[in-house]
């Protein structure tokens, strides 16, 4: 169950699970940014921002190119709209449902009198 494409989906989910990385992605989807320009937006080191960009790059969400001393990052629009993205999103919907089912069933145990027969 760990095909390359599932690993890709995991990398995708991991990449988007962090608010700084989501913010970086929003910026680079709007246009190419140098990593140093991105770093100015966050209260962290250049190296830390560079690591975030690398995680996005591994997930296929961002591509990088070099221009002189600058590393330029841009967002991969197609990847954001890919089937992977959709299935990851669908997974989150069902995780939410499963949590609510669990809570509903938990109610039975804590308030047994409220359980309804259908």
């Amino acid at each position, binding site marked *: *169950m760990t095909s390359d*494409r*599932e690993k890709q*989906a995991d990398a995708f*989910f991991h990449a*988007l*699970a962090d608010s700084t990385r*989501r913010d970086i*992605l*929003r910026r680079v*989807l*709007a246009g190419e940014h140098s990593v140093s320009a991105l770093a100015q937006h966050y209260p962290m080191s250049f190296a830390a921002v560079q690591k975030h960009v690398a995680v996005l790059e591994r997930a296929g969400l961002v591509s990088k190119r070099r221009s002189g001393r600058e590393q330029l990052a841009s967002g991969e*629009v197609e990847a*954001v*709209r*890919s*089937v*992977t*993205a*959709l*299935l*990851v*999103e*669908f*997974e*989150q*919907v*069902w*995780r*939410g*449902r*499963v*949590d*609510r*089912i*669990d*809570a*509903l*069933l*938990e109610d*039975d*145990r804590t308030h047994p009198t409220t359980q*309804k027969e*259908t």
Partner: protein
Amino acid sequence: MPVIDVAKDLDSRTITVTSEFAAPVDRVWQIWEDPRQLERWWGPPTYPATFTEHELAPGARVKYHMTGPDGEVYPGYWDITEVEKPTRLGYDDGFADAEGNPQESAPLGTIGVDLVAADAGSTRMVMTATYATAEDLQKVLDMGMEEGLTAAVNQVDGLLAA
């Protein structure tokens, strides 16, 4: 963690979510069979679901809608294909117009739910959903579902559309 496995097949646009609940199979069946219980978990708190017609019988059409925070309504339907109480439910899902009638000529996806007794009176639920095209999957996700990552991805989509 109630979710114990998630498998995705990108080629067939299929996702399988396996979860386990500390309740017997008959009890877990009720959360699908009783529309009032279904309403408690189908939609997130921001997009609650209301089931207006609900009968789990092959050939029956279940009608429901989700209501967004600004009052926008997203109607949908399930065409029930398979019922083996209390262990298996199959349906095709799609979008409906305001009267609850199908909007598209064909349903968007095929969903199967299997309930299997597991250890110590618990139940394993295996939900498999398959969508014919990426567009169909997108439409389902656009239908007033905003949870977790969805919010983030939608923000990105909004940015792309701007």
